[in-house]
């Protein structure tokens, strides 16, 4: 945070205000609730001063000032609506309107158009323009998703500055000049950026419109709900725009800590599944080999009866559950609770469940820092990632870091879109990510690059020795050879990491599933620890996860060996605490994992929002077909559902409340943006109904109640409530002030050495931990 002592005092429309040095008049006025109209200015981009809409009169300045480019000064007296300022704005609007077609009745932007709004508020009553307007062919398709109407364009430069300066991708550019000036695309450089849709949202007029949205509705018919995008693990904050029973688009609901106000095209427009006519509207039961519609009652009774039979005949270990990374924390939590407390088994896992070979307390599941922390990194190493397609808005954040001077290394088997902007690229043999990481660690250990100054004094000789011992016999050369990469290049990279002021090392969670990938998470963590890239902002490491609630599924214990909050099932104290809260006894042995459950060891399987057939081998598929009983709960009749005995229709994330936890540990509230599809139910409702059919006395009335229970009994989620999460979410572990509903002042927490040594999953003694960031669940759990 900037020093607050450099405040500048000024007066805007007779209201005194003090703002930090360097604040623009526009921003200062905004703080006072005074609107100054803008077109070219965008708070996420540098001031441009092109549109001349934001005129204000500043005393003792001879000319009108543009509020979006003029920085406040001490004693400044600003008038935003003096007659001189009004004339300036009227003039600009008249100029903008002389070539604007005024086809508002058929314009998609109608009612959310800045030109309409500002003309109404600041414009001339009529136009004196009685000569000929410019005409262009229209609309022009500029990309797969976007149409351009050049007559409506007011040349505000927002879109071209976004594609060129923010996205740094091929896209829209200014062409020609002066009055002939148009925006366009180079026919030989297609506008295929995954960030393209932002230009539609930021266009202040209807010049850029979305093909899918075009002519579908008038914006005032939309129901707009603040929520969180469910497309990937970034968790961008969105506004879900729904017309009757269809999601038409998502718009950004700027959260600077995550998305910086941007969305990717998948998040914006990929609503096909939610709106799919293939959505299930009734439970299905297999009768005589075919799935047929059934009532909820019948389906639920059948599920309870069949699981009951299997448990009775073959024991609880013959039942298993495969969970999902797409359902909410509440649902993930209930799912494993149903398996553990209701059916008495730890056989619960999900496809991306395993992060093997995690050291005790070392938390390899989590990104030690945050998305916003990338802004302060001097080096970013992307190891085996495909951020552009898998976590697009993280990719965009990396681009922001590049603009700020960060050196980015793209270390991947295949070329990436980021390569062009990278300080360095390294290619290695597909499937050998772990060898690359281990080689880097080995170089750091063998070249004596481990640092131990300041906070890094915690890099003890023992830790270095432990790493050396683990890597014994594996030279950098041999590891590099295994990875199929030049060892000299790796040495350069390792030295850069070791010498950086702040490096962030990220890898894709998929890489941990590669052959030999079980060492990856620990090696990367040690690489960060030994090079001093831990426990401070703008540094760190961790996995980039794939799905909207990939981390939440783990946090909630959809794992065979971990209870919610990463407490081992083998830990009697953890079992006792949880069992007490649940009023149930939890089996003491680790359950079967995902692969085991597909190998025939279970007879009854409950698949929640997953589609294992898609990843299954022929043998695994045969095992699934041979199950005594298979329940699948999903939106559509997935490949796995087609094998099921019972199919339960669930709803999309836009149809229910809950929370997701994103890839940087941020727990965020997802809100129902529309009515549930008739006949389908929320996953949590289905789970409650199944539990009650099994004879459990679950009484959850809404997801908030489930979240409250999670906040009470899952230590890392201590203090999490809907109220505390607010509109922007909080990153676990919450500080005590955050849990009390106050925003932390100093930004998001990064993991500290205390957490590493003591473990965030352990209830700390009161007052322990630097910065009070350790979880203190005492007094909260029953």
């Amino acid at each position: 945070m900037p020093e607050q002592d450099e405040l500048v005092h000024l007066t805007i429309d007779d209201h005194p205000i003090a703002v930090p040095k360097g604040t623009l008049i526009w921003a200062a006025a905004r703080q006072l609730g005074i609107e100054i109209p803008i077109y070219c200015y965008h708070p996420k981009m540098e001031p441009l001063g092109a549109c001349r809409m934001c005129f204000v009169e500043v005393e003792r300045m001879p000319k009108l000032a543009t509020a979006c480019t003029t920085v406040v000064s001490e004693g400044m007296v600003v008038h935003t609506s003096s007659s001189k300022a009004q004339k300036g704005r009227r003039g600009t609007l008249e100029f903008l309107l002389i070539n604007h077609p005024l086809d508002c009745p058929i314009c998609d932007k109608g009612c959310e158009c800045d030109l309409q709004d500002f003309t109404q508020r600041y414009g001339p009553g009529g136009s004196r323009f009685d000569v000929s307007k410019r005409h262009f062919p229209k609309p022009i398709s500029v990309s797969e998703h976007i149409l351009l109407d050049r007559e409506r364009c007011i040349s505000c430069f927002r879109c071209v500055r976004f594609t060129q300066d923010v996205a740094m991708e091929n896209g829209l550019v200014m062409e020609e000049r002066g009055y002939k000036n148009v925006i366009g695309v180079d026919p030989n450089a297609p506008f295929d950026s995954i960030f393209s849709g932002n230009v539609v949202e930021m266009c202040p007029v209807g010049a850029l419109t979305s093909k899918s949205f075009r002519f579908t509705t008038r914006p005032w018919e939309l129901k707009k709900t603040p929520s969180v995008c469910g497309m990937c693990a970034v968790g961008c904050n969105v506004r879900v725009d729904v017309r009757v029973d269809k999601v038409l688009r998502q718009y950004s609901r700027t959260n600077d800590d995550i998305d910086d106000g941007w969305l990717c095209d998948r998040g914006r427009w990929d609503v096909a599944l939610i709106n799919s006519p293939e959505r299930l509207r009734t439970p299905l039961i297999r009768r005589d080999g075919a799935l047929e519609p059934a009532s909820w009652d019948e389906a639920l009774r059948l599920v309870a009866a069949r699981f009951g039979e299997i448990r009775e005949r073959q024991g609880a270990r013959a039942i298993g559950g495969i969970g999902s990374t797409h359902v909410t924390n509440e649902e993930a939590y209930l799912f494993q609770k149903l398996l553990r407390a209701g059916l008495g088994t730890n056989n619960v896992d999900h496809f991306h469940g395993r992060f093997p070979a995690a050291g005790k307390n070392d938390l390899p599941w989590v990104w030690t820092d945050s998305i916003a922390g990338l802004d302060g990194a001097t080096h970013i190493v992307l190891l085996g990632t495909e951020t552009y397609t898998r976590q697009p808005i993280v990719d965009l954040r990396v681009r922001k870091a590049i603009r700020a001077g960060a050196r980015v290394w793209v270390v991947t088997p295949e070329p990436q879109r980021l390569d062009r902007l990278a300080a360095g690229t390294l290619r290695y043999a597909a499937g050998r990510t772990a060898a690359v990481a281990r080689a880097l660690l080995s170089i750091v250990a063998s070249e004596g690059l481990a640092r131990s100054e300041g906070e890094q004094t915690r890099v003890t000789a023992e830790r270095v020795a432990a790493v050396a011992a683990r890597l014994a016999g594996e030279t950098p050369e041999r590891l590099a050879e295994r990875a199929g990469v030049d060892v000299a290049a790796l040495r350069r990279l390792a030295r850069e990491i070791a010498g950086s002021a702040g490096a962030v090392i990220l890898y894709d969670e998929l890489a941990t599933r590669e052959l030999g990938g079980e060492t990856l998470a620990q090696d990367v963590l040690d690489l960060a620890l030994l090079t001093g890239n831990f426990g401070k902002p703008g540094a760190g490491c961790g996995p980039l996860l794939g799905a909207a609630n990939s981390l939440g599924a783990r946090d909630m214990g959809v794992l065979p060996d971990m209870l919610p909050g990463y407490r081992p099932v083998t830990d009697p104290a953890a079992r006792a605490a949880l069992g007490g809260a649940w009023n149930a006894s939890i089996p003491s042995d680790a359950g079967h994992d995902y692969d085991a459950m597909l190998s025939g060891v279970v007879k009854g399987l409950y698949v929640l929002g997953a589609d294992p057939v898609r990843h299954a081998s022929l043998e695994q598929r045969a095992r699934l077909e041979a199950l005594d009983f298979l329940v699948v709960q999903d939106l559509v009749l997935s490949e796995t559902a087609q094998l099921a005995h019972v199919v339960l229709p669930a709803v999309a994330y836009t149809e229910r409340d809950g929370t997701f936890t994103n890839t940087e540990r941020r727990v965020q509230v997802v809100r129902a943006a529309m009515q549930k599809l008739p006949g389908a139910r929320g996953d949590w409702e289905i789970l409650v109904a199944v539990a009650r059919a099994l004879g459990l006395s679950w009484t959850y009335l809404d997801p908030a109640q489930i979240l409250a229970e999670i906040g009470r009994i899952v230590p890392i989620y201590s203090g999490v409530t809907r109220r505390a999460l607010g509109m922007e979410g909080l990153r676990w572990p919450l500080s005590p002030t955050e849990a009390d509903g106050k925003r932390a002042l100093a930004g998001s927490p990064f993991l500290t050495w205390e957490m590493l040594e003591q473990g965030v999953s352990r209830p700390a003694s009161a007052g322990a931990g630097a910065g009070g960031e350790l979880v203190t669940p005492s007094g909260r759990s029953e």
Partner: protein
Amino acid sequence: MAETIDTVAHDEQQLPLGPSPKFVTANIDVPGIDRLEVYRDHGGYQALEKALKGYQPEQLVDAVKKSGLRGRGGAGFPTGMKWSFLAKNTGKPSYLIVNCDESEPGTFKDRMLMELLPHEIVEGTIIASYANGVHHAFIYVRGELAYSGVQMERAVEEARAAGYIGQNLLGSGFDLEITVARGAGAYICGEESALMESLEGKRGYPRLKPPFPAVVGLYGGPTVINNAETIATIPAIVRYGADVYAAYGTEKSKGTRVYCLSGHVNRPGNYELPLGTPLRTLIEDYGGGMRGGKALKAIIPGGSSVPFLLPDQLDTPLDFEGIAAAGSMLGSGGVIVFDEDTCIVGAVARMSEFYRDESCGKCTPCREGTFWLVQLLERLEHGEGKASDIELLNDICDNIAGKVFCPLGDAATMSITSSIRLFRDEYLHHVRTGGCLVGPGARRVAVAT
């Protein structure tokens, strides 16, 4: 300690170099003066030697301050002061740009200097670089002036071969690289920040100020930009001394400048004269008076971006203050003369087209306003205008002037508002009769009031 550059006595009674010295164009008619040997034979590069060997950079900045030299590109900002504003110790290299993007209608002096006296520009560039601690200077030559570009490049190469460019110039320890760059057709690139954008390989959009180029300029480094004529004057100031230069001209507009005389005069051309020379002297004595014995109707004294003057202002001195007091601007020194047969509406329409075509399109009032103005002027010129168009022109100009991003938009309004003020009758005549008041297209019949 070296002798200071300004030791020559300032004697107002006796001008040191006679009444009309040529600081810039003294040797312009020497055959082959564009070649290094000939230029050297006529004293070329002696000023450079004097500067490098005898002076500290700050002394040179002081001398240029003392000379009173003001920028010859149009704005007339004191050159020495501009130099002294250059930010020091920013951690980034400083740059010098010589603005040879001459494009102002009515102005053709820089092209002449580049073609005939390229070494004078190069010598001035080297001295200015030394004075400003610049190690890489750029000479940005207007794209259309191919021959000028060739001349500048060759002069730079000759100077390099002679050891005036490169490492450790003349044993001074000073290193300098000079690169000749070319534009590609855009008037706006004469604006200093647009020029920097263009020099960085981009579209020539003017940049937001502040930061000013002296602090954040080319490649983000502190940058001095001087016009070609300004730079070409530097060797003479060093050679003769600041006081000698300052002995000419007026109190606030010192020295000489090259006036570009064009339009309806007998002898159009470039004339280097002391500032403060009356317009009448330039037009009548040097220009040989009005062509064909016609009467003078109007004068534009500083390129098409400045307001008109009338015949009764012929005794106005050609200096920044004198012309300003008369209601116009000295600008680039392009003096355009209009005779009695010129239809002002047609001429203004033509000048306005220039600004419409050359507007970069960045800011709304300039982009849209010049488009609208030209449509109105053309409709007036073609006899289809309305009386209300005249006030509309004035109000559009008011919505442009002072509200645009850079001076181009302001410039576009100058001839329009001043001509409406001075020649409203001609506009009204076009409205009433559909034709011109004067000249070959005159339509007098319908004037019945």
